[in-house]
């Protein structure tokens, strides 16, 4: 049973990263992120591996969706922890898309982090989805990505660790999430190769590179190492600042 649920969540998460979930389903999944440590940890893995690949593309993010979801998540957070209401409120939501020190963002993956932090994670997930859903034509035209901060640098203020939420509530039953979602949409098949590769392809490239010839392997890895594009233009000053202000405890994840 548990296993089944886990699989179902895994596949939803993976579908989200592949741009195959509707906005409504994303919202639901985002809410689950606020409660499920395992799911959150997996989310970060998907996101970061995917980031390695996707950064080579210019992306345009949809702020409205982010804000809408952010607001929804903020409400969700208040059920669990009243202390987080303030930080997860609408003011913060509006500034969610502002690039902030990424090291703080690391805290999201801590087990049992505060609900508002998780809310931030959820919002970021949605931005990822929008990244995937971007019209390739727009991307190809180099549509302004400076106005669209990179998802991984979008952060809410970190919460004190003691705002832990131990929601015992079990996640919704498998399948029930999908009910009553009229706008679940099948992504239109693209005649061209998809522009932004789904997260799982990063793993495949790395695994495959072990078996490539010396020349081909280098070419394959260059596809990941090479920043290869404008998408890496992301608030350099703020990123630099994080080195000094890395949250205590962030290093506990190292090694």
């Amino acid at each position: 049973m548990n296993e089944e649920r886990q699989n179902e969540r895994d596949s939803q998460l993976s579908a989200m990263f592949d741009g195959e979930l509707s906005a409504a389903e994303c919202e639901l999944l985002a809410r689950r992120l606020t409660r499920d440590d395992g799911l959150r940890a997996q989310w970060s893995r998907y996101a970061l591996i995917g980031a390695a690949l996707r950064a080579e593309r210019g992306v345009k993010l949809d702020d409205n969706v982010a804000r809408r979801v952010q607001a929804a998540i903020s409400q969700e957070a208040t059920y669990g922890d009243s202390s987080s209401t303030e930080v997860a409120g609408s003011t913060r939501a509006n500034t969610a898309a502002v690039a902030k020190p990424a090291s703080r963002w690391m805290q999201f993956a801590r087990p049992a982090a505060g609900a508002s932090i998780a809310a931030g994670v959820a919002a970021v997930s949605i931005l990822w989805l929008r990244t995937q859903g971007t019209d390739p034509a727009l991307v190809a035209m180099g549509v302004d990505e400076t106005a669209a901060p990179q998802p991984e640098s979008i952060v809410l203020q970190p919460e004190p660790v003691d705002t832990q939420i131990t929601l015992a509530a079990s996640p919704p039953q498998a399948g029930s999430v999908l009910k009553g979602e009229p706008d679940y949409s099948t992504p239109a098949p693209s005649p061209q190769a998809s522009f932004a590769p789904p997260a799982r392809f990063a793993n495949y490239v790395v695994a495959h590179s072990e078996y490539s010839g010396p020349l081909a392997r280098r070419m394959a890895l260059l596809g990941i190492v090479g920043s290869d594009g404008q998408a890496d233009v992301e608030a350099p000053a703020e990123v630099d600042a994080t080195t000094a202000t890395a949250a205590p405890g962030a290093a506990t994840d190292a090694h």
Partner: protein
Amino acid sequence: MRIDPRIHARRLNVARFATLSLLLGAGVVLGAEPTEWLERMNKALTTRNYVGVFTHVRGTRAETLRIIHRVRGRDVSERLLSLDGSGREFVREGDELTCYLPDKRTVLVERRAPDSALLPAMPTLGDGSELVYEIRGGERERLLGRKTRVVALHPRDEFRYGYRLWIDEETSMPLKTQLCDKSGAVIEQILFSSIDLPERIPDSMFKPLVDASNYRWLRAERQLTATNAPPALWEAMRLPPGFRMTTRSQQAMPGSKEPVAHLVFTDGVASVSVFVEPRKPDSKPTEGPTQVGSSSAFSTVVDDHQVTAIGEVPPNTVQFIAEQVKSTSKSSGQMGIAPPRRNK
């Protein structure tokens, strides 16, 4: 009376091979030995110590990177770092591949599957590579003030890319590499601006530039859930000309609890991996082509499994292979675990 087309094709191949051997033989006599230069280059790339700086050009984009490669007995260490923008680095030491992403403040650690603890099966020239690539050149050309030999691996069909290489006469290192399509158009290229071949490379050269202690470290899960039913055996029923299977194994992947079947095919130069994992019941299947740098991928669903072929080949090749993947066992529960299989 009918001629079996397969026998006919085989005869044709034999005839082609004979013609080719003659041509290649003639080439050696004339003093042009492009194949030999390719072998020397592969040997240099895999067995020598080197530190080089190169520019990678793809389309209108260019990026400068440094590569450091060290071989000490059986230990191979390699570091590839971007000197521009992102500052990303790959460090490979033994079985561990660490990817530093300073722009994401993240470190990814991949471990080679325990099955492939030995050196992975590398594509090697020969075994019929000449049937699918026309290997020509060998003439001298001056590049960056050095004497080089220019060798072209020209694909004989649309199933693979070609390479044009400027191989340094003295060191056999490729000073310039172009990846080309069948028509000869350059897809991407690598141009070295400096290469050193030091006797020793200190460990310190493999330390990343960034202090990653405050970064988030992500490691691939390597524990697989024990399954009662051993996984099915998979294989490709037909392959594009010149391709053969070299490896078959099960391996763990981040984000997948179940073992992923991994098949490797090569034509002696290019290689294609096929990954097969059980499809998750509620997820939408991934289907169709994807491009990752110069690598192509194609995904499809076979017997409720997600099949993805990926390799540094044109999109039609991965599609061909992916669509030929079938389970060879009638009932997946009856088959034994596929041992890692390695052909020479």
